[in-house]
């Protein structure tokens, strides 16, 4: 690890809200996308000539298409309820990382161009023209937001800064200012089928290697099938699961669960990616195009169920948006969606989360578990932001908090939750979500992880916790990278299905 060029925040025993330090993070600018990257996803290659006019036009377009954007720009009263809720503010002290101030970057321009008060009394209501300086601040600060929705929990009007950030990024993209990290990945997933740009043959190799590893480890031949027509289940999982540590341990866990349950399953090379970065830039059509791959793959492979692996934003898109976007779920009436509805088994929700799937098997006693196999671990659970505040699992609201914890308690003996104000709907983002998981934003990532690191530090001290389980590929990658900055070992990071994998006792297939 190279020596950081910035100060690592100190972990405090009692978390404190920092004093406002204007422009503390003004120097942060994520790498911008090059012209080929931009053009590959349908955006202008560079800042267009009449960008000011185009940006205002785009803002008007979005105001007509998104009620959230319109209502949220009007409704804020500057009450300050959100000001101490964002992990990036808590970690940096930069006031523009307070949700209300982040929104204000766009709201001030909205007022100037779209409201009576801002047109005629700009100074009075803080309305601003869209200058190059304002545009640069949009880029700086809309790429210091992980769209985690924590602020929306506490806002008396439910204003969700994620919606504002998405609109900001969509306007920026439309005038030729995109982020390299996100837009490059959007190109790869649409061209190759996954965010890592892993081609089919490489995927086959990787999966075969994993099968050999599992057999060497357990003596049991567990399969990881790819593109197998007629399988019962299509598993859509983040591509990081194929080769990143510790992600791959969860993939092995899913495979073992399918194996022992005796349910045939397959991955798809066409849709070897659960992540949908279309969400990050708020672009509906991009998000829809990426989701269409899943529907295509399900139809092509003739599966009866679609299950989604451990991935946070992916699960939000799958659970909350797939039905709307491409009719995976009940009620769509275009020919392909109807075909899919006839094909899928109506006894199971579509889509289903891997935790819902495993929890059901555990409850029914289908899986043979030896909890003591996890006795070397003292476990806590990090709720991933978009699972917590943008989705659900099971039949009841809050199932997304209960089900992963129940799984952990069914496969491990030692479990301790972190402080109440840092879990469930109040959970802190890992600091790397929503398009921030790139090395050029490492300072933002390290500082943004502070609230979670402080909460973790408490259970490490009080209960000797040595394993933080989670169900998100981005969370895993982010913590792997930033926890060493805070003196924690990266082996503390892992998936819920990694714990399942350790505890499950396989028997050879009969």
């Amino acid at each position: 690890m190279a020596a950081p060029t910035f100060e690592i925040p100190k972990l405090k025993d009692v978390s404190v809200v920092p004093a406002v330090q204007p422009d503390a993070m003004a120097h942060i600018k994520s790498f911008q996308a090059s012209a080929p990257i931009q053009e590959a996803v349908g955006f202008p290659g560079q800042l267009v000539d009449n960008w000011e006019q185009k940006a205002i036009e785009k803002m008007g377009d979005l105001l007509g298409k998104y009620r959230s954007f319109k209502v949220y720009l009007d409704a804020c009263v500057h009450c300050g309820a959100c000001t101490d809720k964002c992990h990036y503010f808590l970690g940096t002290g930069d006031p523009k990382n307070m949700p209300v101030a982040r929104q204000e970057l766009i709201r001030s321009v909205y007022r100037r161009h779209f409201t009576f008060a801002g047109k005629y009394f700009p100074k009075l209501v803080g309305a601003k023209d869209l200058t190059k300086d304002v545009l640069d601040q949009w880029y700086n600060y809309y790429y210091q937001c992980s769209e985690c929705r924590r602020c929306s929990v506490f806002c008396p009007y439910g204003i969700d800064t994620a919606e504002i950030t998405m609109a900001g990024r969509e306007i920026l993209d439309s005038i030729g200012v995109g982020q390299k990290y996100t837009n490059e990945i959007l190109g790869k997933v649409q061209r190759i089928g996954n965010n890592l740009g892993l081609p089919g043959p490489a995927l086959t190799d990787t999966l075969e290697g994993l099968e050999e590893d599992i057999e060497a480890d357990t003596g049991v031949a567990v399969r990881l099938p790819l593109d197998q027509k007629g399988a019962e289940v299509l598993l859509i999982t983040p591509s990081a699961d194929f080769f990143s540590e510790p992600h791959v341990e969860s993939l092995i866990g899913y495979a073992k669960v399918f194996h022992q349950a005796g349910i045939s399953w397959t991955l798809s090379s066409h849709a070897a990616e659960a992540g949908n970065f279309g969400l990050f830039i708020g672009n509906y059509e991009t998000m829809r195009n990426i989701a269409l791959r899943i529907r295509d793959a399900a139809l092509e492979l003739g599966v009866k169920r679609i299950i989604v692996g451990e991935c946070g934003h992916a699960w939000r898109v799958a659970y909350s948006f797939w039905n709307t976007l491409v009719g995976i779920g009940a009620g769509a009436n275009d020919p392909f969606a109807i075909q899919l509805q006839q094909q899928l088994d109506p006894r199971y929700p579509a889509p289903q989360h891997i935790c819902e799937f495993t929890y059901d098997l555990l409850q029914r006693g289908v899986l043979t578990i030896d909890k003591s196999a996890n006795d070397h671990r003292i476990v806590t659970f990090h709720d991933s932001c978009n699972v917590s505040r943008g989705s659900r699992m099971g039949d009841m609201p809050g199932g997304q908090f209960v089900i992963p914890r129940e799984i952990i308690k069914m496969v491990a003996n030692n479990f301790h939750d972190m402080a109440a104000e840092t879990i469930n709907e109040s959970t802190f983002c890992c600091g790397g979500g929503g398009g921030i998981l790139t090395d050029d934003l490492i300072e933002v990532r390290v500082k943004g992880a502070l609230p979670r690191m402080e909460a973790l530090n408490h259970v490490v001290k009080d209960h000797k916790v040595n394993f933080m389980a989670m169900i998100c590929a981005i969370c895993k990658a982010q913590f792997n990278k930033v926890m060493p900055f805070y003196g924690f070992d990266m082996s503390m990071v892992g998936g819920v299905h990694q714990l399942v994998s350790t505890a499950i006792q396989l028997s050879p297939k009969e």
Partner: protein
Amino acid sequence: MSLLTILYACMFYAATAILVFGVGYKIYDYARTPAPLKIPTTPAPTTNAGVAFRLFREVVFFESLFKATKWTWIFGYLFHGALALVLIRHGRYFQDPVWTLVDLAQPFGLYAAFAMVAGLGGLWARRFLVDRVRYISTLSDHLMLALLLAIGLTGLGMKFVAHTDIVSVKNFMQGLMSFNIQPMPEDPILLAHLFLVATLMTIFPISKLLHAPGLFFSPSRNQADNPREHRYVSAWAAKLDQK
């Protein structure tokens, strides 16, 4: 008819029209703007009845604000609750006979005015004392508090310092309502109070006071969490299905 009477009558007709049509237009505008995706902040109710109850808790108890910050909740609740009582109490200037509810609220509404002023004082103090809130406060945020505070203080002034002729006030108001304009009493505190109220009514549809209708149209609060069970699609997004 005095010039003052004509001015105040016109002012109230104009302010009422701006308030009703301005807010009405905003509500129409919010209602016609599609919300293309399901974005309730979860955990969220799974039924429409549950959503109604969630909104009820937000409106009546300020549930989310309570989770966020106790001081702002205390001052905000004090102000809004007291304002509601004061508004109910003012019903007596418009009704004949006065409704029972308004009658019952008279003693409470009277003291609520003090609570209202105290709540506003607390909210304003936060804009100076908390560095984060100070940073985000605009001139209009301060002026809005000043306006409300001035309305409260002039109202209290007429009750506890220099009584105004409320029989004439009621006469004037009822005259306005029946388009049979009656003389406006020439009491400076009353004139100031009513002018400030008309100002508040006028700026309602062009200011942050839109948070009141806005809450009901906030997708993170007014959507049910049932996307797997029911397809939800907006008109412009449905067109993409046809491609």
